[in-house]
């Protein structure tokens, strides 16, 4: 049996690329391909592509990082839009890995405890977390997603049978449009989690990532006052796995 491997889908808005690649090289202890998307209209990412690519190739270190597949995209759908570009790339590259990890350079300047929130989310790439995640995946074939237990949310009010969320109308529409009929309404807030690659890529072979991306809002969309497709897809990325008979585990 081959040792497990994973694909990391990382979306970057705030630059500091070498630091991120170094971090992944240090933390991840299984063979991995890094799909790395850069928001190209971000003030933090105005560097010339070729010089950047040279530098990033030089930043590759450690025994586990197999390759970096770099992409650039405009700021549409925030990190979700970037991750969809990377999923599209992954399908073209025909990359086969057992697990996938979604990450982005999370900063929420409008939240008071943004650093604590970021630390919580990035706990999933700590070696101890990764080890537990792979043991859990191996033991229980029904687990499709593993995330930090404190980032698993549920906005569904079972007594009212309604979503308590600014995104409720988008959620209802998307669930119906993509035939999501699972009654597990939990999702990973912050969109950083481990997921089995098989159901993930199966879904996106049926529903091309760019077709979804075109429906996402442009720019720095937020759901503090009204809903958005972008934030609804934050929930959908978990639910599309549940719709294929899998469940979620928090660690």
């Amino acid at each position, binding site marked *: 049996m081959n040792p497990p491997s994973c694909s990391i889908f990382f979306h970057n808005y705030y630059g500091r690329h070498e630091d991120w690649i170094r971090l992944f090289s240090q933390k991840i202890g299984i063979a991995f391909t890094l799909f790395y998307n850069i928001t190209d209209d971000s*003030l933090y990412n105005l560097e010339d592509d070729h010089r950047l690519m040279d530098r990033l190739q030089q930043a590759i270190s450690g025994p586990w990082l197999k390759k970096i597949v770099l992409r650039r995209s405009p700021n549409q759908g925030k990190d979700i839009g970037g991750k969809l570009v990377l999923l599209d790339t992954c399908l*073209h590259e025909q990359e086969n890995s057992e697990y996938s990890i979604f990450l982005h350079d999370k900063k929420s300047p409008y939240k008071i405890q943004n650093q604590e929130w970021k630390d919580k989310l990035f706990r999933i790439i700590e070696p101890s977390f990764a080890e537990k995640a792979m043991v859990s995946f191996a033991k229980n074939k029904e687990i499709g997603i593993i995330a930090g237990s404190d980032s698993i949310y549920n906005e569904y009010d079972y007594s009212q049978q309604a979503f308590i969320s600014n995104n409720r109308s988008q959620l209802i529409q998307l669930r119906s449009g993509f035939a999501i009929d699972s009654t597990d309404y939990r999702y990973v807030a912050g969109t950083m989690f481990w997921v089995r690659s098989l159901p993930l890529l199966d879904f996106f072979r049926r529903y091309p990532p760019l077709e979804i991306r075109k429906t996402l809002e442009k720019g720095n969309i937020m759901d*503090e006052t009204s809903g958005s497709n972008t934030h609804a897809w934050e929930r959908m990325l978990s639910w599309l796995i549940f719709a294929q008979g899998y469940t979620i585990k928090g660690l």
Partner: protein
Amino acid sequence: MINRIFFISDKAVLSGDLLPPEENIYYSILADPLVDGSLEDAYTLITHSTHLSLALTLDIRERLTAERIRFITSFLFIPSYLTLEFRPVINLKGHYPELLREEAASLSAYFSLQGIPKPVFHIITGDEVAEGNGSFHSGEALAAGYTHLLRSEPDSYATIFFYPASGEILRSAFLSLQEAEMQYRREVPQLYSLIQTNRRLEKELHSLNRRYASTYTELNHQKQYLEILRSDHATKELQDYYNNEYEILPLWYKRFGHILKVLTGKRTFQSLFRDGVKKYKN
């Protein structure tokens, strides 16, 4: 070069040794969306091109399917895909100008849905020189066409397309172009120098415009964040608490409070009189 030259060829030529990087010399891979594997080969070549930007030249004979349009869009996310003035470049080649224009519109509409505005489309319909542009298949015709363009429209960008069948033909064509340009430079040195300066300044202008747009956007983001922080949020609760519990107290009471801090050892005595000293003991 003071004009833009596109060398359009297949994977075999573009995978070989090309010319050293040269201003306004661009490379483009020819792909036929109707041929299985053609776009896939082009995608692989551009993905793995780390030192050279490449554009797509699409041979268009009939309408592009939705799937092909999507695939072509995927190219634009590759960092080594060619952009001019930060706009992706696509060459559309074929015999039917109307069809080419329709396909340019379809592609443009889909790119816009993906947040990619204003792509640069070059419509290439034949060998004749039209609207300052020309496409050539032989080195001799290229050199003659380029000389003609330099003399007819020296102050605006002309775009030339050439189809080298081998790396050798490509290099020889490049030498002919260089020779034509050197000749022109000898004839009108001042004009040539002004054109070069103009090109450099145009480039700088585009770069500064991009920086300006990104800075403006980022400032708006920061304003948005501040509005959220100041609105119905936990920070507002903190601010209200501070206002109600402390800010409304009289000034003499606040000052007495600072003296009390010194007496209870929580604040340094010097900090009552000077700003540049350590204020709190913990």
